[in-house]
């Protein structure tokens, strides 16, 4: 049986390990691949609950000597060489040490990416961190993605590149029995669960100490008032704050394997809203008290505000007065009814991608060079098959298809995904209108966008961005396209993908037909493929994903 290797690192929370275990367990259940999770984590708590094999290393970038780091990497190389994985799945942060492992070179590599804030996604993308992945499986749906505040370029890369799949959120959803058992033990007492994931004080900013000590005080005061609420504080293994004594209404745990069930059973969840704990809390009915702290690439403050708006709840600080007011208010609110999507379909989509990439046995083939060919036609020669003139057309596998000129796009009238960007001056329509009506790609008529078009885009940048591609323009004066062939061959000697804008306006309809026929015949005999509009869009979006623009 082939092996699927999952590579993760435990940073602040449990999310990376949780996702890797959920996915590895699904892969194991399918019975066609043998999953092995390779982790770098200081805490073993969650790993001990795994039903799949796990190899845990220390956080290699934090071992105290370069010799030690080398030693661990050599062991990892040797282990991976023996496992001979058919596919590798990483989680969220493209890791330079995992990237450099020789044993994994040439192995299909997938990245499961939990939500990132907009700036972090831009930074990773711009420095080419996504380049080495065959597929990027984002653990979000489109609606969540759009609320993140991503840049237009990031959205275009995510929406249009065929390397990216919006899989949906991956989180652990506890069994109803486990939730019921917890609720039954409470005998009707309201339950307040406090969790900061694994994080606690790992960031050394005292957050865990303030949060848990504050909640402990609040519980003490409520107990003195004979309030029936029971508090469960799950500090996380990295908690390094003051000791928290258990009292009649407070229990304290460093780790609870059933934390998801506990959160689902809670009336109030007081959490640092990292993706994992937040998703687990949202799967239940608890009213949310969200207490953001520093995070790594998650933008927890902004996310907390969006979650509170979408699902209810309150965003507060660790100040005891604020926390107490929020907890007391949450205890008298009706329980939350809205639930996010279940994770089953998202896990299934990622599982399918893992199996699909592992199943490839045929040697890969070198892709032929591609040419995108835009034809400018005179009024006489133009016809798009519907009887209406198309003065600009793009050649496709099934003949020429009419496209629009940017200069002729009126508000909302754009119907083409690909548009010839030859407008001087820029058109009386906002770039966002073009994008909202399906516009995806501008083809410039030269090596750069015309200054007026560039300014038009820069003044009101759309989301997602309107992609653009440079083209080479030339004019044919007879039906003999030999000069075009020479120019195209010259361009293709330097680039694997070329876009040409061919002006045929000097030709009669018969000459246009003859020229196009000869061009199509010639291309069929070359190691070249005609690029469809979708090919051009995908190519430019992938270039953005890889940070090429």
């Amino acid at each position, binding site marked *: 049986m082939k092996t699927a290797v999952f590579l993760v690192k435990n940073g602040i929370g449990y999310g990376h390990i949780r996702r890797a275990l959920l996915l590895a367990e699904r892969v194991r259940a399918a019975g066609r691949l*043998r999953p092995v999770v390779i982790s770098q984590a200081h805490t073993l708590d969650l790993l001990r609950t795994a039903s799949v094999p796990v190899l*845990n290393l220390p956080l290699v970038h934090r071992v105290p000597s370069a010799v030690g780091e080398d030693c661990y990497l050599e062991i990892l190389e040797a282990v991976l060489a023996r496992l001979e994985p058919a596919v590798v799945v990483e989680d969220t942060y493209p890791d330079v040490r995992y990237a450099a492992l020789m044993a994994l070179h040439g192995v299909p590599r997938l990245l499961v990416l939990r939500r990132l804030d907009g700036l972090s996604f831009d930074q990773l993308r711009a420095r080419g961190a996504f380049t080495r992945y065959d597929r990027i499986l984002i653990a979000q749906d489109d609606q969540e993605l759009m609320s993140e505040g991503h840049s237009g370029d990031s959205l275009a890369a995510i929406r249009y590149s065929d390397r990216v799949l919006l899989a949906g959120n991956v989180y652990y959803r506890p069994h109803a029995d486990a939730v019921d058992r917890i609720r039954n033990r409470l005998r009707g007492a309201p339950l307040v669960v406090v969790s900061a994931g694994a994080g606690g004080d790992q960031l050394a900013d005292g957050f865990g100490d303030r949060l848990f000590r504050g909640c402990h005080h609040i519980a003490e005061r409520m107990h003195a008032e004979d309030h029936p609420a029971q508090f469960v504080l799950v500090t996380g293994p990295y908690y390094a704050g003051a000791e928290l004594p258990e009292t009649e209404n407070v229990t304290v745990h460093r780790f609870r394997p059933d934390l998801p069930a506990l959160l689902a059973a809670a009336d109030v969840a007081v959490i640092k809203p990292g993706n994992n704990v937040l998703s687990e809390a949202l799967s239940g009915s608890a009213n949310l008290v969200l207490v953001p702290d520093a995070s790594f690439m998650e933008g927890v403050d902004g996310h907390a505000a969006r979650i509170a708006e979408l699902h209810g709840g309150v965003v507060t600080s660790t100040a005891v007065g604020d926390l107490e007011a929020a907890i007391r208010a949450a205890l008298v609110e009706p329980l939350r009814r809205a639930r996010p999507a279940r994770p089953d379909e998202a896990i299934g989509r990622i599982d399918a991608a893992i199996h699909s990439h592992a199943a490839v046995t045929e040697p890969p083939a070198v892709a032929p060079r591609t040419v995108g060919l835009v034809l400018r036609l005179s009024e006489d020669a133009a016809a798009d098959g519907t009887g209406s003139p198309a003065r600009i057309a793009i050649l496709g596998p099934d003949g020429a298809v009419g496209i629009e000129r940017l200069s002729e796009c009126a508000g909302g009238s754009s119907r083409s995904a690909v548009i010839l960007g030859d407008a001087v001056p820029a058109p009386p329509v906002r770039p966002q209108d073009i994008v909202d009506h399906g516009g995806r790609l501008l083809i410039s008529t030269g090596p750069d966008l015309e200054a007026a078009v560039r300014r038009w885009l820069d003044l009101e940048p759309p989301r997602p961005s309107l992609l653009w591609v440079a083209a080479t323009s030339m004019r044919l004066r007879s039906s003999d396209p030999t000069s075009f062939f020479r120019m195209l061959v010259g361009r293709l000697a330097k680039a694997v993908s070329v876009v040409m804008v061919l002006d045929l306006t000097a030709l009669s309809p018969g000459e246009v037909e003859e020229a196009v026929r000869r061009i199509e015949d010639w291309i069929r005999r070359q190691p070249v493929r005609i690029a469809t509009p979708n090919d051009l869009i995908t190519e430019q979006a992938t270039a953005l994903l890889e940070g090429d623009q």
Partner: protein
Amino acid sequence: MTEQPDRTLHVRRADNDLAGFADRVVELLLSEPPCLVDLSRHEAGATRIALYVTTQEGRDDHT
């Protein structure tokens, strides 16, 4: 690679003998039922790497 009285497997880079250690790790990873192989509890200087194995029964064997 040498086995010490405390059952720690000592791997020294100078021995150029990581192969046996890696073989043992892979053997454990491929065994049933699945287990957790932990190499994270290294000592300062990391010239000794201890190998712990946690099975589903909860044992924590230090080899």
